[in-house]
């Protein structure tokens, strides 16, 4: 049962070849590894391979089958592409889930100011909303020339990470 995993821009194919308890023979693309793998409910992994000791932590993301992985050196965004995900991908083609004329919040915060209203004409680069988090204000700008189509939030309201704020047509 091989499955694809997307790590940043790389898509790798993974398959378990053999297993005995915590000892796995596992293939990643063309490379075969013998690993001693232990993990726990908190997503902490201890992997021994070729004598090296690897520590990896996986944190689930709000989207199913998406994880952030923390190694000792860096963090990675991961997505598991199983049969279901492949089916969904094929059905929706290569179009991204969120359209490009949408402004979303990259982090939780509070809406400080919305200097536009629905129907306003905006140019690419115009500030359309200001979000404050932890004493710092960030201005989000229109990605295109267009007209404000929908505003999902109001001044003073609290927003989650990745929430759709404003749509531009």
């Amino acid at each position, binding site marked *: 049962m091989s499955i694809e*995993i997307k*790590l940043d821009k*790389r898509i*790798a194919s*993974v398959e*378990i*070849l*053999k*297993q*005995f*308890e915590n*000892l*796995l*023979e*596992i293939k*990643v693309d063309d*490379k075969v*590894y013998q*690993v001693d*793998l*232990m*993990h*726990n*409910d*908190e*997503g902490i*992994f201890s*992997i021994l*391979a*070729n004598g*090296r000791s*690897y520590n*990896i*932590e*996986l*944190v*689930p993301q709000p989207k199913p*089958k998406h*994880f*952030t*992985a923390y*190694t*000792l050196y*860096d963090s*990675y965004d*991961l997505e*598991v592409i*199983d049969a279901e995900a492949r089916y969904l991908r094929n059905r929706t083609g290569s179009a991204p889930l969120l359209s490009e004329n949408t402004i979303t919040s*990259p*982090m939780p*915060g*509070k809406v400080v100011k919305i200097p536009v209203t629905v129907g306003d004409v905006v140019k690419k680069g115009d500030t359309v909303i200001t979000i*404050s*988090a*932890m*004493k*710092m204000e*960030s201005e989000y700008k229109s990605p295109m020339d267009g007209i404000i189509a929908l505003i999902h939030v109001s001044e003073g309201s*609290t927003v989650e*990470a990745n929430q759709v704020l404003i749509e531009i047509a």
Partner: protein
Amino acid sequence: MKKITKILIANRGEIAIRIMRTCREMGIATVAVFSDADRTSMHVRYADEAYNIGPAASILSYLKSDKIIEIAKDCQADAIHPGYGFLSENADFARKCAENRIIFIGPSPEVIDQMGDKIKARLTMIAAGVPVVPGTTESVKTEKEAIDTILQIGLPVMVKASAGGGGKGMRLITEEKDIASSVRSARSEALSSFGNDSVYIEKYISSPHHIEFQILGDQHGNVVHLFERECSVQRRHQKMLEETPSPLMTPELRKTMGGYAVEAARAVKYAGAGTIEFLVDNDRNFYFLEMNTRLQVEHPITERVTGIDLVKQQILVAEGHALTFRQNELRQTGHAIECRIYAEDSDNNFMPNPGKIYNITEPLGLGVRTDGYVYEGYEIPIHYDSMISKLIVWAENRTEAIDRMKRALYEYKITGVKTSIKFLERIMDTPDFRSGNYDTNFIEKNKDILHAATKCSEDCEDMVIIAAYIEYLDRLNIALTSKEMYPAKNRWKKYTYQKNFERL
């Protein structure tokens, strides 16, 4: 002399806990206050008593001086410690405490007033003979006066709002043609931000060092300094890292600057802990910048090299005790560095990154101190500062301290939110930092090194992919089978998949 038996801490997060720790060592009961956003904050759980003071926004909770004083009276606290930020430099609050016979742990309201206004502070320092950045000694009321003064001081200059702070009403002028327009916009921003268009003008010192002296005074006229802290590593005008001794310092300069810091404190009859901040240029000319009439975030590095618990001293001074040490008995032993761990995306313009902490592993061992307040599962609120902890190391000398800090940062694992840990680790490897040859321009100057991506090896990437695969399989199993009432006996899994695959 009044023995303090119960202290209300009018603050939150790491500094509230840091103060409570000393209270506990001194046998003093502690009272926490918390906003609606902070019910699950560690400072609420650490305190002996805890009271809600209102909604999440600071202005409705941690800045509500009347509400806080009311709680202090109700629970019969003798004293209030304001920590840093919030009400710590609010003279009105200090005055109200006194009116309600509650000891405010900090200097008198008069001193807070006098050092809070930038021009008053400049004048006080000039009178005490402390060098200040060349510039006006009074606010400049008209545009013409401003332009004349600038031409007299000579470019470059900074125009600053008298009532100002936080960069509002501040303009750097480097070219003659910009003088008029910059003065005008500074005055207009000052008016709209502070209701007062007074500005003052200072010579601009490019890429200075930011060096401060810790001072401690008692109610009997004794004042000492506890040496310097080098605070030049800053991003967005906020400190990221501090160390003591400063690599720039010489014994002579330390003696001179320390002497001026003590003079400055003595001039206002300062009682309690305070900090005199200086700008120092590369030729070691130094200028008074401002005084902070409170505990600083970075006070632990001073504690580490002097061995003195500054919060304990604040409390003893507030009780009326005289200092038990004199200047010539104080020593700076070894080298200490503090790194501030922020919840932020350091590689993306240091954007704050609030969220939920997933796992934490704190660094331990020889020479390492952590002052924090977050814990696994804690959701960092969006309403307050993004600092989640401070990591302080000590070693016999600077090189060893840098190596130790690197090790401690390597060990420090926080998952769930982005943090400044990796960025700080890269600072430890930057040649300008290791050589001690840096000023406030450090992060800008070294941005290529500091923002370099450090990916792990390809094998390591493959291990990440393997982990994600196993986690995915495991979660499928969990969803199907975990209906038991009690957690599994052993959290480390070994046998989960053996049915599914051929055995080795």
